């Protein structure tokens, strides 16, 4: 955290938009293919991503490293703030505190979620084609499902409210009217993106994903 904090804070803010906000949107759309096209639709969407050129580089430079910096520096920022909701229970102060709370929840959730999915592919326990059935196993476990709902809502809130704050911090929405309209826009985005994730999470509970899961168990058993 040495050096000029202005630059690290600006980098933190920029990385939140490019690439992380773009990533969360693409993730929501990819997942929604499970709700729209079932197991095959989801498999195709996963295959499309993995068919991208230099996908490992994109993953490292476009997701992992920015996520790590944004997450770790974000924890430091959360630690630095004294939340004073008791004294000032205004809407924007709520958003300020929730941004920090949702950031910490998202940090933990993303670690766990990556361990359950991408890491398992990385170490060779499952293949990309098995991700649908892995998600079925997670989503049909009521405890995991509840944690996923909390994690997803926190992540999407952090994204939507973070976009609002980004527009202020870079001087794009200056006046109170611009900031108010921006908050309405991002509230709608929050609802839509949460809806996309929820739809996919619910469809992962479907039997068609479970069948694939049973087939996986069968293969493993052999």
């Amino acid at each position, binding site marked *: 955290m040495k050096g*000029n*904090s*202005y630059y690290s*804070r*600006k980098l933190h803010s920029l990385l939140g938009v490019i690439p992380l906000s773009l990533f969360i949107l693409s993730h929501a759309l990819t997942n929604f293919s499970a709700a729209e096209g079932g197991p095959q639709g989801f498999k195709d969407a996963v295959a499309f991503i993995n068919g991208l050129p230099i996908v490992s580089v994109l993953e490292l430079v476009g997701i992992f490293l920015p996520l790590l910096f944004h997450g770790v520096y974000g924890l430091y*920022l959360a*630690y*630095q*703030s*004294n*939340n*004073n909701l008791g*004294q*000032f229970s*205004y809407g*924007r*102060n709520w*958003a*300020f*505190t929730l*941004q920090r709370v949702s950031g910490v929840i998202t940090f933990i959730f993303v670690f766990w979620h990556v361990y359950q999915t991408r890491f398992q592919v990385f170490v060779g326990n499952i293949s990309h084609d098995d991700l649908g059935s892995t998600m079925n196993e997670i989503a049909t476990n009521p405890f995991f499902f509840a944690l996923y709902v909390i994690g997803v809502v926190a992540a999407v809130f952090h994204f939507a409210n973070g976009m*609002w*704050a980004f527009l*202020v*911090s*870079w*001087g*794009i*929405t*200056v*006046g*109170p009217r611009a*900031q108010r309209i921006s908050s309405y826009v991002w509230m709608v985005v929050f609802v839509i993106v949460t809806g996309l994730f929820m739809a996919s999470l619910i469809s992962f509970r479907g039997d068609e994903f479970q069948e694939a899961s049973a087939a996986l168990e069968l293969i493993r058993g052999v």
Partner: protein
Amino acid sequence: MAVTEAPTKTIKLVITRQDKPDSKPYTETFEIPYRPNMNVISALMEIQRNPVQNDGQSTSPVCWDSNCLEEVCGACSMNINGKPRQACTALVDKLEQPIRLEPMKTFPVVRDLVVNRERMFGALKRVKAWIPIDGTYDLGPGPRMAETKRQWAYELSKCMTCGVCLEACPNVNEKTSFIGPAAISQVRLFNAHPTGEMNKDERLETLMEDGGIEGCGNSQNCVRACPKGIPLTTSIAAINKDTTKQLFKKWLGM
């Protein structure tokens, strides 16, 4: 007026006291006779005249800081019923009782309700919140300021460095070096002035260092707390815009 009747109505105050800058704070409760149209300052003056707690124990008079008594100097800022504001415009009739008085916790306590707001004046020096016009010869008249601009700039000039916005800010604390909303708004004021604008870059550069504008977390408490109604969050966002421009100008060598 019923002069013969003994005054029955009283005001109860719970005051956080501290004897020395480094000693432990404690609270004392006072009950004083009510008079119409009292403010917190006149209540404190009443305690000063008769420094006796509500249990009959005498104590030292409570110290506070005040000056103008018309909400333009900012000296009597304190936490009144949990909210930072000026004691002079805190009317007893409009306050819930018991009235809780505490020093602002963002600033070092000198004694009782007296705090040291030096960090705010230091911040004004850091950002050079003035217009340099001194020279060895007559520089002549400066450029004119548009009336439309003067009108909004005047609102920013109402800042009395009272410290309420720093007290309300969740990011002004011992863990950060954030300069706070007041000085950022003053940069906007002096950068808006046609002569002050000539040193615009210097002020922006100061805010692009440690403890500068990046410390703002957009909780927007400052604008709600400001007793003078200064559009602090608009100032912060406007300076965000100017510092962003300055950042790219520097990188591109413009």
